[in-house]
């Protein structure tokens, strides 16, 4: 316990690390707030700059950007009715009407305080449950990891995309991209077409930056001339009575956020929408109707999306399965630093786990400080026209892609993925499952083969193992339910039920 506290305090004792966390949080708020820049984009570009750094320094910066970015989206949602990030869509529904009444300052103050509460709940859950889950995760076998990977990719695909088929396609495409190169078990070339440059595989940072940076910039080009509306800001520090009144609502939303964040593949975006929906249904006799600036509805999504950060770290640090798109990128960063996120991470490198908890906590505190200050400058900066922003995103993407291996070919990959990603986005495909597939694909491949070998290469044995062990059974049932609920069979089954009762 004392040891854990010691590791926790590393992030707090070194002025340089404190500075990096603070700088990350501040930068994250702006990145999250500026429509067109996303946390995922920023972290994927950031890891390419920080891979030469010490792990702790890189993690401190990323923790700050993650927290600041998830929060930052709420500011533009309130002030400009433009959610800076998808996780702030619900915030805009309630926050912007408040801003129109001249209560923008109050709305920002309240969301900041509640976001910080939410963040703490998520971190607390991470600190308490991750070690327990990690003990439990040692019991997981290869087939369970395979199942978890499939569930994670499909969850992102189904919950955020237009259709299940598109989500499944995107996930499978990612897995395929992850397969390119020499097979780690037999050293056979896969999709190398006889070229040496493909033997090392497609660099996943190039794929990430292409899909999240360049493709997003091209999509944003459609809304180049959306005008910004100016706002007046006055008192920011929320009233104590307000904080007390909405505290339990925020706690409830944080609980939802943590759980949704902890599910593999689902992150702050979905957590925020679910928490908003829950607040809407559970608030009896709201003072102000929902959709017109209701405070319960304003704080629920914000508390939830910040709570989801801690939640999303749980599967990443205990199972090696990212909880959302940003943790998928962070897992990439951990791999680059030679770490292996998985059930042994907490056992073998407890200092790393507690350091992450420590820097997340620190970032959350900085969020409170920066969230309640500097709003005047902030409104100036977020009004930066997209015509200036988009070329900058592309230059940063190019620098980020090149930095990782100093190989110009990676930039061509980034460009290719950017253009492909643009068309995918336009035609209703989500790109997050692709990245999850790229990260999880090789892990799923080797686990599939291990599971098949331990089933003595027999498909019957392999399938039996999927249902004969309690952990595998639970995962298999979850996967089958997910698949069935997405096929035309499901509505038929549901229709059959009432007729049986009659």
């Amino acid at each position: 316990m004392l040891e854990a506290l010691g590791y926790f305090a590393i992030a707090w004792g070194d002025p340089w690390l404190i500075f990096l966390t603070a700088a990350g949080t501040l930068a994250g708020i702006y990145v999250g707030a500026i429509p067109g820049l996303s946390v995922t984009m920023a972290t994927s570009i950031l890891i390419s700059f920080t891979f030469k750094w010490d792990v702790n320094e890189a993690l401190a910066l990323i923790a700050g950007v993650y927290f600041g970015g998830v929060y930052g989206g709420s500011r533009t949602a309130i002030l400009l009715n433009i959610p800076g990030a998808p996780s702030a869509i619900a915030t805009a529904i309630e926050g912007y009407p408040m801003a129109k009444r001249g209560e923008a300052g109050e709305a920002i103050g309240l969301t900041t305080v509640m976001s910080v509460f939410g963040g703490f709940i998520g971190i607390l859950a991470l600190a308490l449950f991750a070690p327990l889950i990690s003990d439990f995760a040692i019991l997981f076998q290869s087939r369970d990891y395979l199942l978890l990977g499939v569930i994670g990719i499909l969850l992102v695909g189904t919950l955020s995309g237009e259709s299940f088929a598109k989500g499944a396609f995107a996930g499978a495409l990612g897995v395929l991209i992850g397969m390119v190169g020499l097979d780690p078990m037999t050293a056979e070339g896969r999709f190398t077409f006889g070229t040496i440059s493909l033997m090392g595989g497609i660099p996943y940072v190039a794929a990430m930056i292409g899909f999240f940076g360049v493709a997003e910039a091209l999509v944003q080009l459609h809304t180049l001339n959306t005008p910004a509306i100016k706002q007046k800001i006055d008192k920011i520090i929320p009233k104590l009575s307000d904080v007390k009144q909405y505290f339990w609502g925020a706690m409830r939303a944080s609980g939802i956020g943590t759980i949704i964040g902890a599910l593999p593949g689902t992150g702050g975006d979905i957590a925020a929408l679910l928490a908003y929906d829950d607040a809407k249904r559970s608030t009896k006799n709201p003072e102000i109707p929902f959709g017109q600036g209701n405070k319960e509805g304003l704080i629920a999504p914000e508390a939830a999306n910040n709570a989801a950060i801690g939640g999303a770290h749980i599967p990443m640090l205990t199972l090696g399965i990212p909880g959302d798109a940003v943790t998928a990128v962070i897992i990439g960063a951990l791999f680059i630093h030679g770490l292996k996120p998985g059930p042994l991470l907490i056992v073998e490198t407890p200092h790393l786990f507690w350091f992450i908890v420590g820097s997340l906590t620190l970032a959350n505190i900085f969020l409170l400080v920066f969230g309640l200050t500097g709003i005047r400058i902030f409104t100036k900066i977020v009004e930066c026209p997209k015509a200036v922003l988009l070329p900058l995103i592309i230059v940063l993407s190019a620098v980020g892609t090149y930095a990782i291996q100093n190989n110009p070919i990676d930039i061509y990959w980034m460009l290719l993925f950017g253009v492909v990603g643009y068309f995918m986005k336009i035609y209703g495909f989500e790109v997050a499952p692709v990245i999850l597939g790229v990260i999880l694909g090789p892990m799923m491949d080797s686990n599939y083969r291990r599971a098949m070998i331990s089933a003595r290469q027999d498909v019957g044995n392999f399938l039996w193992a999927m249902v004969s062990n309690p952990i595998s059974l639970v995962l298999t049932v979850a996967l089958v339910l997910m698949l069935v609920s997405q096929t035309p069979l499901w509505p038929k089954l549901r229709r059959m039920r009432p007729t049986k009762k009659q």
Partner: protein
Amino acid sequence: MQPAPSPRRPGELVFAAIVLVFAVCAFWQSYGISGFSGKTTAGVFPMLASGVMVLSGVVILISAARKPASSGGFWPQILPLPHLVLIGLVCAYTALMPLLGFLVSSALFLFCTFQFLWRKNPFLTLALTALVLGSVYVLFRQVFQVVLPEGTLLQGLF
């Protein structure tokens, strides 16, 4: 009843067809790795993944075909002029970077795109380019110590 399906986006059917053709090619390539020779060979998992792509590609194509026909053209709605110009500029930028180096190619790229998208006085654009590029250079080259591409044509100059 289900809500009326939204109309197809321009070019959606063609894209769905390309997606399916790509998936079939990927499956064929995956089959080529080790065929059906074993259950744990290098080609099995790529075949599973590309198999999922083929199946979902068929579903995507069918559901796209079922939607009512699109209104509006492909070029104005999906690839209007600004997109074509920007993609062209990015292509030129990435092609020139190994030759001219990061600084020169980025300066050209930023100036052209700012001028094209922002449409302000060229001197203002030039000042903005210098400011943006200067901050990027200082932040990444000096502070983060990132190696930036040096051109083969202008080696030693920048």
